[in-house]
């Protein structure tokens, strides 16, 4: 069966003053495989996915998701459509408890799913009990059970990243974009995260932006390499590993 295209961009460009961060990029992503974007710092990876999830407006070009043009949709609408982004540097609500962080994300999904409505259905509201259940579920999934009442900013860095992933999952994604999830994690934490991502990818499409080659080659089924705002190469991990152009860009010539 031919892979189903989930997301595509045509001629996507972003310019800041004299800088062209992303230059005329055609990027395609297919369902049911972990896709990774790699490239050196400043290659335009984050700018590209920022445009995909609507954080950054594009200077020109178009974006399609599930066959619909989403170029003009607000970032909120894109999240509702299923594109969920987790941040490179943690962007949790630091002053709120972990419960609140995940609940914020979960309650919207529950509202849209009939089983979450329970008793308060006629108010279009979600019962707090349903939210609590969902929060526990997602925290358990990322291995952070029992930290509900802790203030998020007081968590260790690695746990903040996991909390961010939990928030992403709770938002009910069809496409989960993980921007450098392993950044700043210790070796042992990275191993757990790889397991987690693999687990997530069973039910959700994952787009991974990563520096750590080990992680990428370990997880990704398809890799896109970016450099200088453009796509340098695409292919399976082994194709990429043996591509001399990639080697050049990544290691200097």
């Amino acid at each position: 069966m031919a892979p189903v295209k989930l997301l595509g961009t045509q001629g996507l460009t972003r310019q800041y003053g004299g800088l062209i961060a992303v230059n005329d990029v055609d990027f395609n992503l297919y369902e049911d495989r972990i896709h990774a974007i790699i490239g050196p710092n400043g290659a335009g990876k984050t700018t590209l996915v920022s445009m995909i999830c609507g954080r950054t407006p594009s200077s020109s070009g178009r974006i399609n998701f599930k066959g619909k043009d989403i170029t003009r949709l607000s970032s909120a609408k894109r999240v509702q459509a299923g594109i969920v982004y987790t941040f490179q540097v943690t962007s949790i609500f630091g002053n709120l408890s972990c419960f609140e962080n995940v609940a914020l994300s979960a309650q919207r999904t529950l509202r849209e799913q009939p089983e979450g409505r329970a008793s308060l259905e006629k108010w279009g509201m979600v019962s707090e009990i349903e939210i609590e259940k969902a929060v526990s579920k997602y925290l358990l999934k990322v291995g952070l059970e029992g930290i509900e009442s802790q203030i998020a900013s007081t968590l260790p860095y690695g746990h903040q990243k996991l909390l961010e992933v939990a928030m992403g999952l709770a938002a009910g994604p069809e496409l989960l974009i993980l921007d450098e999830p392993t950044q700043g994690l210790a070796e042992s934490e990275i191993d757990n995260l790889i397991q987690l991502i693999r687990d997530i990818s069973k039910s959700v499409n994952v787009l991974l932006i990563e520096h750590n080659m080990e992680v990428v080659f370990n997880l990704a089924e398809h890799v896109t390499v970016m450099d200088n705002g453009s796509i340098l190469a695409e292919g399976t991990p082994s194709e990429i590993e043996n591509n001399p152009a990639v080697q050049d860009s990544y290691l200097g010539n």
Partner: protein
Amino acid sequence: MLKINNLSSRYAQVKVLNKVTLKVKEGEILGLLGRNGAGKSTLLKSIMGLVEVVSGSISLDENILSEQQAHNIPKYGIGYVPQGRRLFPELMVEENLKMGLLVRDSSTDVLDWVLSLFPLLKSRMKQKSGTLSGGEQQMVATARALCLQPKYLLMDEPSEGLMPSMTETILETVEKLKTENVGILLVEQKIEGTLRVSDRIVFMENGSISEESDPQKLAENPESLMKYVGVKARY
């Protein structure tokens, strides 16, 4: 000699450096490698006085920099090329360079020398620096730091987001500076170039120095690179 002794520092409440000890001699190029978030940039910022030092010290020859206010540190001859270039975007190129010249009241000869290193900038002097291309911005950032006639230059990912040819220009400049006896602390992602120009390599992980090596040894024995940076070098 730029000495960092047992330095711990923090951002807000989070500790980011843990007992770092490091020395850089005049005219020496020290390459600092490690994953994103390992603490390389924080180390440079700590030297510049931008991050709160909890314990330990930073000294230059007999002067203890860690006791100084941030704005006095460059006056000892420390130039900083920050990550992401961070020019003053609304200022003209000329004015950005002037910011460097003013630190130690450098003469116009210095400007001439700097412009001889980056001749392209001569035609850009009156342009607002925010409108330059990435490569040109990196030249300005480097030139701006050189204008204060640094004894030591701290460079944070100067090749980030640049085309290979531009990266090459930067590395050439670094090598030229070495001949002028400037000590350089270089944080880089592009491993090969770093190995090529550095006299010594230091790896960082989780806010600490984890290993010191020299480029030759690394070339023969690339496991450390794999371990700390996560790439396979092509040797």
